[in-house]
């Protein structure tokens, strides 16, 4: 079982034609429906639906409050290694970029964890580049073991693995997996990943399901918005999330909506995703998948993050450094530039001022039995 045949089928579909053919009247009919089908979802992503943004936003706000309440789960990334064998054209960690490379010692990982825990956060996302020989499964297991006493929830965003390796990391204390397909277009994918293990489109596409099969509680997916037409990418990503929900009903499927940000390289986005586009993307997604967790990262500006908050967001990063060891010592070159540099305390103050409760802990690890 794989999402690959579905992704390839969608590639052959004339989605752009269908998007262009959608009228405001079509969108109004969709907005009158309680259950949003795949075709309805496509209509909500159309240019015509852009004229109905307020109606989408209103319904997205209601659905989000009903299912998640006025709460926002907070986490921060912890970069432990920026060694990478890939040559992704859009990424600051690409092997071709001449940036200082480092990998934290386990003592340094502990120091980073302590610095993050001192801000009050209890959920972290552990990140590496793709260099399994340098920062592989045994290293990640060691990282998780020193971080577990500080954090009830540990997610990973590392290189794609086999199911048995995910099972090892779950045993060590990982509960969530993030993996971005970057683009669902195989031709563009090949162009953007000229060398390195990430070049294997199908292996990466099947990564979320290998994580689910291993027993991850949360599987977070996404496309890097800006690499190509965002409407098509968001549609296919949404269908991938729906496919995961259907086939792995016990897994909490989540999605991030990252837009391209400046980084250590000269890649220019092929498509500009405006604030208005991102609001349409998020609200359409919320209507299609009412229980989907949606993350907005510090790639976005503080003002935009504050305003988009009620429209579908359930998780936010805060107090972010995208550099290896950036929490406990002055930052080196990060993977990309962040836009919202507010501290955890500042983000919490903003949330409370807007009537939202920051949630620091949303899982109780079970290995400690009474």
């Amino acid at each position, binding site marked *: 079982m794989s999402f690959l045949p579905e992704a390839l089928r969608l590639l052959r579909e004339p989605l752009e034609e269908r998007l262009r053919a959608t009228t405001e009247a079509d969108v109004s009919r969709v907005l009158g429906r309680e259950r949003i089908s795949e075709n309805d979802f496509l209509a909500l992503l159309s240019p015509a639906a852009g004229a109905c943004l307020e109606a989408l936003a209103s319904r997205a706000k209601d659905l989000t409050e*009903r299912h998640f309440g006025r*709460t926002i789960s907070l986490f921060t990334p912890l970069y432990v290694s920026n060694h990478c064998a890939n040559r992704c054209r859009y990424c600051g960690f690409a092997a071709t970029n001449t940036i200082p490379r480092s990998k934290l010692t386990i003592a340094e990982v502990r120091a980073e964890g302590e610095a993050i825990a001192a801000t*009050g956060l209890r959920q972290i996302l552990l990140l590496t580049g793709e260099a399994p020989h340098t920062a592989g499964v045994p290293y990640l297991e060691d990282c998780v073991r020193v971080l577990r006493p500080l954090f009830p929830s540990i997610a990973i965003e590392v290189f794609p693995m086999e199911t048995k390796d995910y099972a090892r990391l779950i045993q060590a204390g990982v509960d969530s997996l993030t993996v971005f397909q970057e683009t669902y277009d195989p031709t563009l994918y090949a162009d953007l990943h000229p060398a390195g293990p990430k070049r294997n489109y199908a292996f990466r596409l099947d990564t979320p399901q290998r994580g689910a099969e291993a027993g991850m509680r949360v599987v977070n997916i996404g496309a890097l918005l800006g690499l190509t037409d965002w409407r098509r990418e968001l549609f296919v990503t949404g269908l991938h999330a729906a496919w995961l929900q259907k086939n792995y009903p016990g897994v909490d499927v989540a999605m991030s909506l990252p837009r391209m940000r400046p980084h250590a390289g000269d890649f220019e986005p092929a498509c500009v995703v405006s604030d208005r586009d991102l609001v349409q993307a998020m609200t359409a997604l919320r209507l299609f998948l009412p229980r989907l967790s949606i993350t907005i990262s510090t790639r976005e500006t503080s003002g935009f993050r504050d305003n988009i908050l009620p429209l579908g967001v359930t998780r936010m990063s805060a107090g972010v450094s995208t550099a290896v060891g950036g929490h406990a010592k002055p930052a080196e070159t990060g993977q990309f530039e962040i836009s919202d540099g507010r501290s955890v305390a500042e983000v919490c103050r903003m949330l409370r001022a807007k*009537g939202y*409760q920051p*949630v620091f802990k949303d899982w*109780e690890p*079970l290995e400690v*039995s009474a």
Partner: protein
Amino acid sequence: MKQNDTFHIGGKALTSRLFTGTGKYGDDTLIPAVCAASGAQVITVALRRVDLDKKADNVMRHIPEHMVLLPNTSGARTADEAVRIARLARAMGCGDWIKIEIIADNRYLLPDGYETAKATEILATEGFVVLPYMNPDLYVARSLASAGAAAVMPLGAPIGTNRGLRTEEMIRILIEEMDLPVIVDAGIGAPSQACQAMEMGAAACLVNTAIATASDPLGMGRAFGQAVAAGRAAFLAGPGAVATLARPSSPLTGFLDEPGGAA
């Protein structure tokens, strides 16, 4: 109306039949005021959200002392996980009451009856007061009763939907057939729906989303407290019979009662 309509469960006597929750509030400091306004005496809390290491910012510190704490196993996907969460809750000082929630379907959040019965049996044996969240299915309810549940908690509609008593006929059967208290949990979105459940003879209602996400949680909590009490009073008062046909003032067979009208 019955003067002393106390509700006994797990060895505790309760005068309020509204249970409430701690989830989905924009600000946990509202919880004590909502409890006071609604009159609720039992409150459920998801152990997954409790961080005992953070004394200053912990949902538990907002729960009034007089409330009966009903920790729940939210996040559990199997009986084994629910049992471990329940044991952790007891070890953390949350008492012996436990609401079993075992959900392995994240689209509709429907409870798994088989796993719920397994967890109930284990935890009841260990001395917990077990209140299982369930689909309103008579066979599942009977297996939960056999497993030692202190009550059954059927859903009115999927969690968080505010869709009301969509399972009314099934809940009615549980009320008729079960000796255990039937506490309607999940889906109730308006005080009128809680009132309806109580009029049907439910022992209590658990309401969280409809209160926590209301524009005025205090006002909504108060309304739910009044609705549950009104529904209970109506049930105790014994509603009059419901007729399917009107009773005409000039009955068609009235002539039979007239002198010389009947042979």
